[in-house]
């Protein structure tokens, strides 16, 4: 919250936008937040790997548009940059890298067995309620237009975490991780109108590097265990 109040009193002059526009932008923003939440649930229940990739790309697109709108509403110009960065990185580059990995490792036809989808959905709903409760005090004292999306951001983080727990395939776990990162990014934009540009650039670079390292890891896991199922990593020694 400290950062948020800082931002408000920062020397950058806040030119007030027209009120109706602001209202409309806030409505669009909450619709986009809802869509991000929807894609997070979609990732949780999707069985096919290509479906997961598409959903992840959609989530990135919604996030990018939402960041752009927040940038317009708050008049914080560097949000446009991070919006474009999100668009390039999370909608185009990362899905492309994962796509290439999937083709290289020939897992594109794999349909993953997920632990009981309806139960996962119910846990997901409980997580949404939990994160709403958790963020309710912050939302109460916040004065930003985007304050309501904070709960959605936290829920997205938790759903990404849940996905990493319930899935067994390494690639899907990575997608869960990246969707968690999307949630964090949304939290930053909704709670404080974005992190400073340097931090955002650093995070973006980190994600990119992480994707490459994941790729190397995938190949290592595959050569060592003959599959990307992380359950096989639980065995420490070869059995007869």
């Amino acid at each position, binding site marked *: 919250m400290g950062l948020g109040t800082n931002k408000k009193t920062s020397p950058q002059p806040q030119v007030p936008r027209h009120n109706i526009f602001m209202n409309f932008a806030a409505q669009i923003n909450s619709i986009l937040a*809802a869509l991000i939440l929807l894609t997070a649930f979609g990732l949780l229940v999707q069985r096919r790997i290509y479906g997961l990739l598409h959903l992840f790309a959609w989530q990135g697109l919604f996030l990018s548009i939402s960041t752009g709108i927040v940038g317009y509403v708050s008049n914080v110009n560097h949000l446009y940059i991070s919006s474009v960065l999100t668009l390039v990185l999370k909608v185009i580059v990362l899905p492309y890298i994962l796509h290439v990995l999937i083709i290289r490792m020939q897992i594109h036809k794999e349909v993953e067995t997920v632990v009981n989808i309806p139960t996962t959905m119910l846990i*997901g709903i409980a997580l949404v309620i939990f994160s709403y409760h958790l963020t309710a005090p912050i939302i109460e004292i916040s004065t930003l237009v985007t304050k309501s999306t904070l709960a959605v951001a936290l829920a997205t983080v938790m759903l990404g975490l849940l996905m990493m727990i319930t899935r067994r395939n390494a690639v899907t776990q990575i997608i869960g991780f990246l969707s968690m990162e999307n949630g964090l990014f949304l939290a930053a934009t909704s709670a404080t109108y974005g992190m400073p540009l340097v931090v955002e650039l650093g995070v973006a670079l980190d994600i990119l590097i992480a994707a490459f390292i994941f790729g190397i890891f995938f190949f290592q896991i595959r050569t060592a265990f003959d599959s990307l199922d992380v359950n096989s990593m639980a065995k420490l020694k070869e059995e007869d």
Partner: protein
Amino acid sequence: MSQIYPVIIEILQIAILLIAAPVFIGWIRMLKCWSQGRTSAGILQPYRDIAKLFTKDVVLAENASWIFRFTPYLVFGVTVLVGAIVPILSVDLPLSATADVIVLIGLFAIARFFTALAGMDIGTAFGGMGSSREMMIASLAEPAMLMAIFTVSLVSRSTSLSQIVHVITSKGFILRPSIAFAVLAFIFIAIAETGRIPVDNPATHLELTMIHEAMILEYSGRHLALMEWAGMMKVFLFASIGIAVFFPWGIAPKDNLIYLPAAILFLAIKLCLAGTGLVLIETGLAKMRIFRIPEFLGSAFLFATLGMLSYFILE
């Protein structure tokens, strides 16, 4: 004089329901034929089907009880009653005060309950199978339906359909994520409840896949005509409930007979669009395995719950 207007509107609305439901189904079938490259039988074919069935003799199984004979009349009557409550043309309905949307769902449940009993009454294997499947779908669809309706009720602070229409039309258009989720959930549930593809195929009599058709397989003559007609009205009513709750602009307000022609026109346009949407869904998707239906309806429940949550979180 002004006390007679609502009664006129009520009668007009029931007449429109009875007449327009087969045309609506005919429109859907015609579009479907076109989209699949077949020649259609024309938009009035459902009338000819019903008329033919009314002239045929009723064949009853020897062990059919009163439930089997009584069910078609009950289902037809209940469906007409629902049509008298849903604001299809105007919110100014005398009967709308008698039942809110929860009772509407209950009325549909009565019709379904008796249809399922009738399916088991004869004692054939198909009837029982159809009944058990129908009840499985119903037990999953009803909670989701209630959740979707509650979301709308939260927004408009009422469970009465007329009141919902009145509140939404008088407030003007606001983009609400909760309503968007509720629309999505409602479409899923409406497909399941009216037995369309991907949940059930209304055109099939293949033993392994039919659900609704399996229950009414033993009906013939005027009984079958009433069941078919009620089924058509059910599709029409679900489309009307969806229109009334989510896109009510164009439904005539209180004490205003002048708006009625415009309301009829708007209704026709919206129903044409709804039919087109349904045909697009039915042509684009294949019927899913019956064991995937819980997942399909589970996601409908998820959307409805998310809608309700996002009302509290985002608005």
